[in-house]
């Protein structure tokens, strides 16, 4: 009787232990927490638009928030994507269209040609070398060469008017920008190259970090299109003014134009592109 009780109790405790163990184990199962698709990848049969593919994309870009001169750039982007989320390549462009802002036109029309402004604003009656119109003195970005890395951590789909559902990715790019500039050349306070009579332009290359983000819409296996924002912060003398060089902290004009007169600008542009990718895309499991 006692033996029976001991055996029964022992086995009962073992059963309770098994019950407790099974409950604990079961609670640790994702399958109980998230349903029958637990453990599955968040996207099945994902069309891998990037991985192992080259992309060539003609671009059209325009600068934003320009003070004196706007630039429109035609370019080409070539990329190879090692992973779906990582690629590298280059973007190059040429400033095909460039025109003055209304502020530049107003300055040309209304700024008085007096000794205090002759260093900054060309006076046609005094200029012996260089441009004679303020609009021509404003600096412009003439070409771009940008080696860059692209990260595309976000892949998804988009519903437009509940009728069109393209694949979309959001990507970030980071690189070094080599920017060809046309900028007012250095001039001096006195001598033959003094800034009153000399308003020549010069070319130089500015090197700057560049970064931004973009959206790509995939319309098929080959074709995509999208928009991209790019920041190119660097210092340049956009108006060709003498603004710094002497006084407290060099914050007063010194009648010379040189590298001290360059001011920091968070240059920005937006690009539109049409991309062609090859070879054919793969599909994930």
């Amino acid at each position, binding site marked *: 009787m006692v033996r029976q009780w001991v055996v029964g109790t022992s086995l009962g405790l073992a059963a309770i232990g098994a019950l407790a163990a099974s409950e604990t184990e079961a609670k640790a199962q994702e399958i109980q927490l998230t349903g029958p698709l637990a453990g599955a*990848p968040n996207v099945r049969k994902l069309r891998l638009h990037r991985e192992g593919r080259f992309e060539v994309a003609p671009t059209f870009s325009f600068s934003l928030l320009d003070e004196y001169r706007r630039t429109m750039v035609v370019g080409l982007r070539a990329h190879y994507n090692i992973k779906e989320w990582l690629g590298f390549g280059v973007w190059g462009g040429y400033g095909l269209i460039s025109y003055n802002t209304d502020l530049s036109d107003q300055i040309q029309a209304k700024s008085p040609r007096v000794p205090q402004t002759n260093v900054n604003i060309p006076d046609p009656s005094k200029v012996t070398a260089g441009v004679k119109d303020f609009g021509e003195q404003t600096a412009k970005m003439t070409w771009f060469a940008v080696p860059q890395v692209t990260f595309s951590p*976000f892949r998804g789909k988009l519903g437009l008017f509940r009728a069109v559902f393209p694949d979309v990715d959001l990507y970030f790019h980071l690189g070094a920008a080599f920017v060809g500039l046309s900028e007012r050349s250095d001039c001096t306070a006195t001598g033959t190259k003094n800034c009153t009579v000399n308003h020549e332009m010069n070319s130089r290359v500015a090197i700057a970090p560049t970064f931004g983000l973009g959206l790509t819409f995939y319309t098929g296996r080959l074709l995509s299109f999208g928009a991209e924002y790019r920041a190119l912060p660097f210092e340049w003398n956009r108006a060709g003014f003498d603004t710094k060089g002497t006084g407290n902290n060099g914050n007063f004009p010194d009648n010379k134009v040189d590298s001290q007169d360059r001011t920091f600008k968070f240059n920005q542009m937006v690009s539109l592109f049409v991309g062609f990718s090859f070879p054919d895309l793969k599909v994930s499991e």
Partner: protein
Amino acid sequence: MSFFSILRRTASQSLEVGSTRRKPELVTQSMEGVTMKQARWWLLMAAALMVPTGALAQPKGGGGKNPKPGTPAAASGGDIELDEKPGDKPGDKPADPAGAGTTDPPAGGTDNPAGGGICDVDPTAPGCGKGGDVPKANANAEVKADIVAVQQIYALKYHRFEVNPYFALSLNDQFVSHVGPGIAANWYISDVLAVGANFNYYGGLNVDSEFNFQNRRATRVAVPLNEYLLGVNANMTYVPVYGKFASIGDFIFHYDAYVVGGVGALWTRPIAVIDPDNRKFDYQARIAFNAGIGLRVFFNRWFAATAEIRDYIYPERIESTVVPTNQKDQTDPAKWTGDSQLTNNVQAQLGVSIFLPFSWEYRLPK
């Protein structure tokens, strides 16, 4: 019903359904009233308890790779549990072991299976009535491939109230930046259309830029400047775009994009820069039209981050660049302002959205 039949039935249900905590409870309930005196029954009970555990203990991914027929197609991640009551899903309902009663006969596929079907092995299995073998019937059924890309919109907005506090930064004024807090409130008439209002406050936060100073000193040309006090607008919002993104680490977030437009008033005044000794301006209301686009990224179903670009278009009265020669005219307020100019104030508005009520029920299943 014998105890062994109870155990067999419980184990088969657990294997078929594949989950849920109700199986151990069912076992426990079934065991009530059964005598505990014989040790072998304990062993059998322990074995029965281990059966559902074994069924649940699938390797990660194993269950997902072969979802059972009838599993909701869009049950991705853990979303589905938030919206569906337990028992609503087909998989949550216990199977009928007798094959009678609750299981509907399959549509189509009336051919007798030639072998290998479940009905050949067990004619009493669910779905093996006069309709024939369910898997074969399903294989022969016409596939309805009309599956929308986003099966349930993550955050429905129909008849919900949105409160959107934000901070605004002007984008297109190089001379004076207009920054300030704002708040918008919208009522969604439908899931894609809302009416609402927004309020911007700029008082004391307008900043004359360094660029303005340098340009004025270099050219001896003063540019008339204006500052804002506040703006109030009535708006309509249309949400034509929605979607979701998957990111690294299997994280999924949902977003929508909208266009917004409206009309209201903007209180502005010129900053006296041409003749500051004599001129002092008061704020006046101008009619302002606005249009913009925005993006909303949802953190959950009622809380989102918002980014919006809005252009407020209004007729601005700017300071006259002409200073009268005599003292009487210089102090005459009628001569302080020039012509009216249509002005664009493009601003970025970054904020958060809170949707009320916090939850809702979907009308249709996934």
